[in-house]
């Protein structure tokens, strides 16, 4: 049996009321419900408040550089495609600094699950605009308000034919846990954008602001229809949909590599008995 105690990590250093606490709670519950033990998965995190996430858990952890979670996660997943690999990043980390990697991880359809703690602000550096900050929002660093347009990561991902695209809300733990489980069970690349209030620095997108707008996608919505997914992804303003927005079931990157079919790379013999013979054959090509 796996219980909450198995995941007891360090004491979080987040602000009281931070949306990260609920994300952590939802994630632990999702792991328990899926019977995933701490050693069976690896979290790759970046820099920002979200980057500290794996320290407040117990699991294999690579807390890397700002913006570079996805390449590290890709490397880990390719070395061990039996390992569940989850990348945890913030909006600045993943949509700003590491934007290029996001595009290409989606293209590869590598089996990495990306959870973005999207609080629409830079928290760790104390309140500058992020790529998802709303246009016109004032910060100490944006004296004329945010001049650039707001990035919609969900629309971007659907446009790139990302194989799993979802949005969650830190204020609805049960719903969030459900889509985390779906993302983990999806075999290809999954983007889960999690709306998360920053109680200290984002005075616009507060719990109340989100609560008045978010609604769960229900009823006859078909996430496998790309056009309706694209339309759904464009909803932002008075109403913000949460739930699974788009799914396609194209082949994953790992599935296309013939020698990863039977066993992960880490279980391949490093030096086989006839190693020297194989190398000699290569050398013979040069005569």
């Amino acid at each position, binding site marked *: 049996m796996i219980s909450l105690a198995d995941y007891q990590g360090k004491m979080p250093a987040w602000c009281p009321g931070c949306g990260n606490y609920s994300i952590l709670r939802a994630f632990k519950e999702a792991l328990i419900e899926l019977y995933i033990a701490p050693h069976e998965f*690896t979290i790759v995190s970046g820099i920002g408040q979200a980057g500290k996430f794996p*320290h407040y858990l117990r699991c294999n952890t690579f807390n*890397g550089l700002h913006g*570079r979670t996805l390449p590290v996660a890709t490397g880990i997943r390719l070395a061990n495609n039996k*390992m569940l690999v989850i990348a945890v990043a913030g909006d600045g980390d993943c949509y700003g600094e590491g934007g*290029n990697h996001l595009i290409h991880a989606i293209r590869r359809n590598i089996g990495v699950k990306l959870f973005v703690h999207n609080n629409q602000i830079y928290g760790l550096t104390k309140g500058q605009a992020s790529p998802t900050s709303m246009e016109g929002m004032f910060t100490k660093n944006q004296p004329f308000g945010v001049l650039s347009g707001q990035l919609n990561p969900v629309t971007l991902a659907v446009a790139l034919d990302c194989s799993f695209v979802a949005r969650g809300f830190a204020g609805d733990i049960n719903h969030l846990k459900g889509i985390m489980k779906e993302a983990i069970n999806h075999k290809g690349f999954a983007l889960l954008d999690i709306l998360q209030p920053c109680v200290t620095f984002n005075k616009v997108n507060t719990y109340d602001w989100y609560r008045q707008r978010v609604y769960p996608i229900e009823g006859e919505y078909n996430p496998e229809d790309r056009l309706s997914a694209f339309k759904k992804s464009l909803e932002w303003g008075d109403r913000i949909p949460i739930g699974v927005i788009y799914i396609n079931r194209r082949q994953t990157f790992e599935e296309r590599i013939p020698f990863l079919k039977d066993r992960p790379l*880490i279980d391949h013999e490093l*030096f086989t008995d006839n190693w020297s013979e194989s190398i000699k054959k290569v050398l013979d090509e*040069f005569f």
Partner: protein
Amino acid sequence: MDYTIKIGGEAGQGIQTIGDSLAKVFSRFGYYVFTHQEYESRIRGGHNFYQIRFSDSPVTASKSVIDILVCLDNESIKAHKKELTLYGTAIYDSKLTKESIDDNRFLNIPLLEMAERFGKNKIMANTVAIGAVLGMLDFPQEVFLNILQENLGKKGGEVVKLNKDSFVAGYEFAKKECLQCAFTITPSGKPKMLMGVNESIGIGAITSGCKFYSAYPMTPSTGIMLFLASKAEEFEIIVEQAEDEIAAINMAIGASFAGMRSMTGTSGGGFALMVEGLSLAAMTETPIVIALAQRPGPATGLPTKTEQADLLFAIHAGHGEFPRVIFAPGSPDQAFYLTNKAFDISQKYQIPAFILTDQYLSDSQWTIDEIDLTKYKHTQYRIRGEKLESIKDYKRHLFTENGISFFGIPGTSTRLIITDSDEHDEEGHITEDPDIRVKMVNKRLHKKWPLIKREMGLPYFYGDSDADIVIVGWGSTYGVIKDSIDILSRNKKIAMMHFSELYPLPDSEDYMNILKKAKKTIGVENNARGQFARLIKTETGFEFDSIINRYDGRPFYSDLLARSINDIIG
């Protein structure tokens, strides 16, 4: 016997095909061969050349004079006519060069016309040219014809026949018409391997158990990735063309963390992007091997030319203080051996290791009699499964006597592998504690460093053991310095000291004593500031008497280098 052939023309004319074929013919015949190339950063046009030196005794560099010049365009005549020896011969096709040359060393051969007549295609002009060169040398035809059969046999008899007819036509024409050709072909030895450094780094990586290579294409390092990609299926290696160099190094670090031996490769500009990742590898104590193929900078510089100007960059790259090792092979067999050593040391000490080459070396080919596979190391330092499970209270960054902590493979036991780019405690969790910080720096740097220094091999000494004059070089200048020592040692007490295990400098007084004892020490470097000389001065206080620099983007030639050395020593 020691001849040099140069083939010049525009990009896309098939210079490489002619050059590669001729070099293969000579190495297969058993001669020693050295080739090098110069090309421009374009796919069509411009002026490129391919130079082949072959001999019945070992050759390790190019000379500046040519015996046979193949001109596929007019520019080749203009650029290289002055390099032709008195007894040298040039061939050209007046249809390609658009003019006839009134010089009895120049032979007009209708390459295109013969290609169309005997090969039914203009493209066969390359095969006619190969025939012409071998005809001028009066070289046995069957060596080429056998290679032709091996390479094109699959494509069917007709393709082989058209090539053969074109070859023989060129051969017979040159043999008959080249009245002044008086080349002597001496008996040869056993067939030899003909290999470039990018390939031998690739073979070295495979031999060392490399299973993951991620890189972004960049001249002159791309050859390593291409070679590994060609062997990916056979040796089950993941070769991933990353979206940029930042991704390339981070992917390799990820794969290494997860348990695989990983490598990346690039040139200066790409490495500039990798620098933060280098620092990450150091902080998380994740082994990584980086092939850095230098080319002239700053910025895009001379993208297809050569320089040795990134040594100090490689030594100092990365924020913070951490250990690294830098190897700079001077030949393909050194590259094989040092790639293996780079993997071994990087795994053993959990640090980054560099293999530093440059365009000249990357685009050169050498003959090698054999590669001694008994010399390579394949110790598995990572722990997994039951062994990992048996370690109670496992900590990824445990403080130890030598600074090295067990590196488990995640997922193979219930032990958790935790690391952080932030300063971390023994377990791998983020910390700002000053005492832990100091202990961690000591672990990563001060404890490992003296052990790493002891792993470094001594410089290679060649020439008079009681030399008055010592010429010091590193990396790609190995062959050319060696060759110029051969020229100069006839009447001088001269020797070469060549460093291929560069940083940290080997932990020994012996080589410093040789330098101190010499009457004159001269550094030779393909850069503007004498970067290795600066390293020696910084680390030991010793200063060379003179430095010979070249930084026009071109390599040294042995006869010209010998002259420069002579000018200094008088």
